[in-house]
């Protein structure tokens, strides 16, 4: 086989492999992703799919219930109705009232039920430009 042709075949094969991989990547990413919602979008919603809920913990709303905790969250900008949340599992160190959290779970009977070990509390230290520390 002459080298020109060989190179062309190699190119076609490697390009098709790359395209196949890219399609797989795109397909799986859309099917594996979880939607991100804010509490105000979930307050009105009925029981739904599993979502990543991003919100701010309402200060002084945290209670220990059995093995887990219960608290309320509002939208990150502090607006909207608050949503009750229950969660069992590891609570990260920085978790407290006023902090932003991300929690995976779904709405059941008007309460957001978090899946264990999915609570993420944002580390407040990085480059806050406001002077509230």
């Amino acid at each position, binding site marked *: 086989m002459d080298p020109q042709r060989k190179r062309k075949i190699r190119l076609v094969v490697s390009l098709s492999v790359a395209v196949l991989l890219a399609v797989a990547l795109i397909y799986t990413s859309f099917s*594996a992703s979880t939607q*991100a919602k804010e509490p105000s979008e979930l307050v009105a919603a009925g029981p739904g799919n599993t979502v990543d809920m991003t919100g701010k913990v309402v200060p002084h709303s945290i209670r220990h219930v059995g093995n887990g905790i219960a608290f309320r969250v509002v939208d990150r900008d502090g607006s909207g109705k608050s949503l009750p949340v229950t969660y069992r599992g*590891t609570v990260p160190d920085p978790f407290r009232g006023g902090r932003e959290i991300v929690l995976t779970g779904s709405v059941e009977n008007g309460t957001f039920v978090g899946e264990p070990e999915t609570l993420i509390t*944002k580390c407040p230290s990085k480059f*806050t*430009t406001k002077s509230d520390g």
Partner: protein
Amino acid sequence: MASLGSALLLLAFLAAVVAAGLALAGRHGDRRRVDLSRRTVYAFCGLLTACVVIIEIAFAGNDFGFKIVSEHSSIETPPFYKLAAMWSSQEGSLLLWAWVLSIASSLALWAIRNKLREIVPYATAVMMGIAAFFTGLMLFAPDVQPFATLSPAPTDGTGLNPLLQHPSMMIHPPMLYSGYVAFTVPFAFAIGALITRRVDAEWIRATRRFALIAWTFLGFGLLLGARWSYTELGWGGYWAWDPVENAALMPWLLGTAFLHSIMVQEKRGMLKVWNATLVVGTFSMALLGTFLVRSGVLQSIHAFGDNTVGPYILGLIGVVVIGSTLLIVSRLDDLRSPKRIDSLVSRESVFLVNNLLLVGLTAVIFWGTFFPLISELFTGEKASLAAPWFDRYTTPLAIGLVLFTGIGPLLAWRRVSWDSAKRVFRVPLVVGAVATLALLAFSDAGHKPWALALFAFAAFALTGLAQEFWTGAQARRQLSGESTAGALVGLVARNRRRYGGYIIHAGVAVLLIGIAASSSFQTNRDVNLKPGERTTVDGRTITYVKPTVAVDEEKFTFGSVLRVEQGGKLIAYLRPSQRFFRPTGQETGTIGSFFAGEATSEVGLRPGPGSDLWIAERPNITAVQRRVRAADEGFAACVKGGPGTPPQCKSLRTLMLAARANPALRAQALEQISKLQGLAAENVAKTYLTDTAPATFKVIVNPLVTWMWIGGLIALAGALIALWPARGRRRGALVRTEADARKEAKYREIRDAELDHTLGKLSDDDFAAVDAELRREALEILDRQNGNGNGAHPHEPEKIEQS
């Protein structure tokens, strides 16, 4: 001091602009202007150093008139962390960026001062343009001025977040930044080479060292960050596919690809377009990392600041990407190489595969990191991808990489014959196969095919690398008659780049073994224990011996003593605890305020070569908090006075009333209050010792995770060996002409081929062919050099010392 700092910063900005202008003015061979521009870069570095010193003096001296000091430090902040507090702030981290860039630019221009005369002016202009950008941000963008002041100056600052008070946090950010920033040097020289169409390997030879330095810093920074997460964050993991982590990993991966593929350009003159693209990609990723931390476009564990400098950095990324792409496209004709890869089985083709794997890995991570934006664009809904999605793609790619870290070093450049391949692959393949069978027979690795594949490939790679060292040392011993150990040292010392690189490979293989084992075979349990109770996790019996309490001015610490036994034998006492910090900068407050600040975990960790036992505690402090509230209420009532208050209350009340009238007594009153409060706090906290509420323990048994850190350190050692200057260079032989450099590089290639031949990687026929080709190329270089009358004395390539 602050106004002096602002003035110095403004001067630095002007110096950067002037240096860039002078360099461009001297681009047609005006050496005086170029020299002056270089000296201006040194001045720029000096000015920024002075700025950093002023800030650090302010931190050390508790000068809370500086906004940056009052917001990121306090009187109680330990001195060690006061020095590091600068880069926990947005403006301080920008200053660090610019400062490191000024150092890197100065070093690069100093090292290359007598070479690459055509490229240097443009490279200087690029580096100083970027430097002016970052210095300008600190001068003109709102909210990020490092020398902003507060008037009147507060008496104390808000302090440094306790989570960041960890030794690795002191060096992790500067390491990452040095990594990001040092990639500017190869990028700038690549741009210069493209503009002047001097796209041979000269710019690569001159800046390769900086790329390796950048890569080393970035890699070490990532390792420190992982270590911090493992020991400080109380979740027991070291990597979470968080956008900020990904942002640092992507330039490292592309940088790895770049370091490999430039060797192909150096030795074979191929892959020029690819290398130019990679260096632009790496630098853009480094900028993207700087941007992501400051923009708030993606959700991350790391909360981001307001969107003040993000848009500017995004603009810079746009300019870099678009400008570089146009430049590369316009130079395609110069970048084309007439040469082709001779054989699919050769080191260069393995490098090509490894490049594809690394770029593929970067593409996957990039897609996953930015998926929330992509999904919003297409579906209107923000959606994110979690760790399992990343693992699905990165695992097979990482396994492929391990395989090639083993294959690459075993193959010679240009061509490999079947016989020599059989010779070098036999032992590693057998060891890999035996390791697989042993793991299947004696461990449960069979249930985790990916992990099993990784272990097998790592065994293959490590054996191959060991064989390289062994045969190399043997060959040297026969020639020199040294001892095996002496020959080994001599071998590495003579070929630092090659064997340093192999050591890095071994370190990465060991590191990936640690990651695979600890992520696939981890035991993770949450248990509730009362004092005296015990539990068994993975063969280790853990007894909650007793709770512990400590109170000091800044924090409450609730912890425990745990006894760990294995097979009936005591192996350790672990003391995990959780600390509750009072919000800093608060002179007085209620005792309850201790629970309003940060909490941090102190992990109980027993590392071991086989596995780590990792325990974090979540004490149940509900009862303590209830009593704290009661104490606070009692204290308030006491101060208010009224019937039935004890006599101490009365005297405190009198003192407070007196202090209201006479400010001189204020300090005394405050002291009295905090003393009483401290006593109360201590008494309340001590009641925890008799509480019987169960505490929650997170117990993790992490097999082989220690090897992750050891592998990282091995790789670091390898990088340092590869970076260590050769003896001749240390003796001031830095000043060399380009022709000399080219000649030396070709000689090194001949030596490499001879070494490969001695090691059996090149068959006699192949060696004869390759050697003849290389010597012809060397003679061409010599002819050209003599023809140009550069005054270099001709060497016969035969005289090259081989040892």
